[in-house]
């Protein structure tokens, strides 16, 4: 189905992803882990063609993904939805419109200018929102929603694309534990119910273990681990995170149970840098 072969991305002298190869033969949920700067985001962005690869190939059901240009490339992007850490919605637009943006890959520019969406699409957007439990937010502006709700809108937009693959780049890094759980569950359900492949960058081990069928570990742009979560030992994790003996898994956790240690419950969004850089040497 999806085959990635020696995919490489260089930024000047810096190699962000270096000869990454793996393949996916049947729909599954894959988690990519690795510490900050390991090249996770770059990998996903190359798959979606947001970033051009330096070398290597990506094949999906016979299509040479990296060779596509113009409309064909946009067609591929329509088939391969992407979810971002910062949601990347249009904040000043209402939720339905944001979901409808999922159809842009197939729609003409002129139709977009005049907001000509078929009624069927509009209703489908509502259905998807309903499925994700946020149908009542439909008329609100995206910026008025909480982080978790926004991420679900982003998932709705992805579903609206009716994609074969969903790529998610740290979908829960900006969310509080409660919302993180809701979002991860939504992704899992999409995989299970619709049979779509989901590839998610995750910054914590336990999330990957809990939701994914397969885990890929990256370090310094290289794939250093590829297997089922069971194979992911603490030693392996140390290897991936390049951590010393003092590595404690809990430190990378965002699960509610592990975090809830008498913190005031004001909805505090942890700053990205606090979470992305677990104090491995603490």
């Amino acid at each position, binding site marked *: 189905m999806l085959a990635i072969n020696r995919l490489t991305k260089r930024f000047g002298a810096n190699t962000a992803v270096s000869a990454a190869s793996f393949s996916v033969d049947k729909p599954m949920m894959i988690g990519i882990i690795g510490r900050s700067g390991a090249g996770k985001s770059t990998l996903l962005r190359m798959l979606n063609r947001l970033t051009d690869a330096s070398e290597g190939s990506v094949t999906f059901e016979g299509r040479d993904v990296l060779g596509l240009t113009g409309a064909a490339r946009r*067609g591929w992007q329509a088939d391969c939805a992407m979810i971002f850490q910062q949601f990347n919605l*249009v*904040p*000043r637009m209402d939720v339905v419109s944001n979901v409808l943006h999922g159809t842009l890959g197939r729609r003409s520019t002129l139709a*977009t200018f005049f907001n000509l969406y078929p009624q069927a699409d509009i209703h489908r957007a509502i259905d998807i929102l309903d499925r994700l439990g946020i149908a009542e937010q439909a008329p609100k502006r995206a910026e008025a929603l909480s982080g978790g709700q926004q991420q679900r809108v982003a998932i709705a937009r992805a579903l609206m694309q009716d994609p074969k693959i969903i790529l998610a780049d740290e979908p829960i890094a900006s969310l509080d534990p409660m919302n993180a759980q809701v979002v991860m569950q939504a992704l899992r359900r999409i995989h299970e119910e619709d049979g779509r492949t989901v590839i998610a960058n995750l910054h914590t081990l336990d999330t990957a273990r809990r939701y994914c069928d397969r885990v890929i570990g990256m370090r310094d742009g290289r794939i250093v681990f590829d297997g089922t979560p069971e194979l992911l030992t603490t030693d392996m994790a140390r290897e991936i995170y390049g951590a010393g003996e003092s590595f404690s898994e809990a430190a990378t956790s965002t699960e509610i149970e592990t975090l809830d240690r008498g913190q005031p419950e004001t909805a505090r969004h942890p700053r990205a840098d606090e979470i992305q850089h677990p104090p491995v040497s603490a």
Partner: protein
Amino acid sequence: MAEISSHGAAGLDRTRAHYMALVQQRRLYGGITLAIFILLLVSGFWLADARNAGGFWSGLPQMFDFPADVVADTIPRLNLLPGYLVKYLPALLETVNIAAVSTLLGALAAMIFSLLATRGLARWPRLIPVFRRIMDIMRAVPEIVIALMLIFVLGGGPVPAMIAIAFHTAGALGKLFSEVAENADLKPVEGLASVGSTWSQRMWLGVLPQVAPNWLSYGLLRFEVNIRASAILGFVGAGGIGYELKNAMSWGQGKFDEAAAIFILLFLTIVAVDQLSSYARNKLTGPGAH
């Protein structure tokens, strides 16, 4: 306090010396800059005064002679004033129309130019410097130049003025628009890119909603400026209220009442648009907005 004090006596001396040197340098540079500036200003004033027909000091007491003449000529025929106001209303309308159309056209062009010239958004990133230079040039050419050239080709009337102002507006707004767009959040754009949208769709849905309030605010400001510009172009034969004002003013005594009427019309319009637009702009961008 020794335990807080981070460095010993030697360190303190170093800090002092270093800071004093800094202060000396700053005073020196500041003094030089100030001196140069004052020198330029004074010598510039002196030069301009010397090259002028009348001197500054001898002219000061006469400053109100002209307005006094206008008023003196207008007062006896005050009863004619309402008639003039009506008579010159169409000319005023033409001036405002010129400003409105050229602002619209210029803003449309500016939108496209600015997006093409903004880092991170440009359709063809390599061409950014090209579009920037084009905007620089469009901005640098005074309206009057284009208007006069077009009057030569197209004949007098509102159209040359309209094109001239629109041309300049495109460059001027293009720069401002692009500054706004530069600060736009790229996340929505990337989000849209990931679903396979075209460049125009990304701009329309991802950028425009973000920048619209500020763009609109700049557009309104430009409309104000353009009303003056279109009145001024009337002075060189591009029609509208400026043309009428110039003719009445140059005739002098005998037609100052008309000049006064036209002046009142133009002034009120400028002030009204100014107030309306600053009100609307405050609404649009809100406190603390760009």
